[in-house]
């Protein structure tokens, strides 16, 4: 129903969720986040390797979530934005800080934060959010 992560799911995505690690194709130099097993440009000729993004970028679009899903009630209202990373791909993340100051084009940088608790005794998930650079 809501996003209830199992331990393996949480574990499998940890590198990307903690450190913003995606992939880069050595053949065409395209970068991807989240990581892709196959470069969609080169397909069989592609060669994907891990790539760590700097975590710097700018807001492409944003919203403020006022009707949150289960497990996010305590955070609402919270900002969510699609961020264009400086290396040239997009990522969707919560925005921390003064969300009323979100603007398209504004610079942001990645921070490591608690994302979600699966109830009282469920998993606590951590991952990336972005903060506004003043």
């Amino acid at each position, binding site marked *: 129903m809501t996003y209830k992560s199992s331990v393996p799911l949480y574990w499998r995505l940890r590198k990307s969720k903690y450190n913003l690690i995606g992939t880069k194709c050595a053949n065409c130099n395209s970068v991807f986040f989240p990581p892709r097993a196959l470069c969609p440009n080169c397909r069989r000729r592609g060669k994907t390797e891990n790539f760590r993004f700097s975590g710097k970028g700018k807001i492409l679009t944003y*919203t*403020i979530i006022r009707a949150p899903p*289960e497990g996010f009630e305590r955070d609402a209202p919270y900002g969510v934005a699609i961020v264009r990373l400086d290396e040239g791909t997009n990522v*969707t*993340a919560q925005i921390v800080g003064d969300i009323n100051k979100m603007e398209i084009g504004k610079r942001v940088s990645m921070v490591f934060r608690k994302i*979600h608790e699966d109830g009282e005794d469920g998993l606590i998930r951590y*991952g990336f959010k972005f903060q506004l650079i003043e």
Partner: protein
Amino acid sequence: MTRVAVIGAAYTKFDEHWEKSLRDLSTEAGALALRDAKIEGSDIQALYIGNMSAGSFTGQEHLAALAVDEAGLTPIPATRCEAACASGALAFRNAYIAILSGEYDIVVAAGAEKMTDLKGTDAIATLMGAGDQEWESSIGLTFVGLYALLARAHMHRFGTTSEQLAMVSVNNHKNATLNELAQFPAEVTVEQVLKSPLIADPLRLLDCSPITDGAAALVLVSEEVARRFENPVWILGCGQASDALALDNRKSLVEMNATKVAARQAYGQAGLEPKDIDIAEVHDCFSINEILAVEDLGFCEKGKGGKFVEEGKIARDGEKPINTTGGLKAIGHPVGATGIRQIADLVMQLRGNYGKLQINGVKRGLALNIGGSGATAITTILGKEPKPTTY
């Protein structure tokens, strides 16, 4: 290759049907469509049914076999089609292709969704299954939030206003007042929309389609069969395209490429252009989506969708009447049923005897059904006359 027509079309009242189950609704819609077509159940050779999430909404999977069982149509083959909110049109398109292939002559395409067995927040979470679970839902993004991101980008790039978004809801609610099957057949004003609570900025409660129970069904037949019936409505083209599930993987945030590609296919098959379309049913799950649709279907230039709405071009008496029976916003949006309901409304308009809902002189209609935030788009063009044979 045969040409294909629709000879039966119907949908149930769209509502919160506390007294009816998913099987009740799908059987009711099927029976209505068969009666409308004036054929017997024993004539049906196959069923395709669109349904997004019966498993999450009601715990029931294996819906297609259940639907033919309930309708007393066993042992015909039954196939469930799923593409989130585009599941209905997906069932239609597969039924169409099955007849084109020569395998069948008479097929039912249906759609059904029972959403109110779950409490509202759980139903909304289920809808978010249409987005990317690992990278969108996991950070607290909601389904309306996805469309809010698209709305904000469109407003920033083209100057589209909240008032223009509100006018989409105003138009569709006004049209629904003529539709006895609509869930919310009541007018709303721009002021009411703009005063309704923000759900995900800039979208407000009255920018959003509701949670609804309902079903719809169509009877599709080959040309040979169609000739035996009065007033068949012809399928002139049907295109389908896909895009990235997650918004952040799309090339553009101000257009839906899947819509553009699916529309190009359908126009090409029909040998028509946007200007040849008299009326359209488009996927107004959120107000911004109707603005994106009129642009991406080529009814107006990219970026001018807000203006197009504001100038009243989408009104029932406008230049390009859109959602003439109320749209998802006011008829309701039982997700798997919507794509079939859109086509049923076009069929009835094209027959020319749709009572007080009738728009006069309609010769060609287009339906756009969208899955998720645009990862699936299916565009169908119907005509009063079949397209000329070229073979």
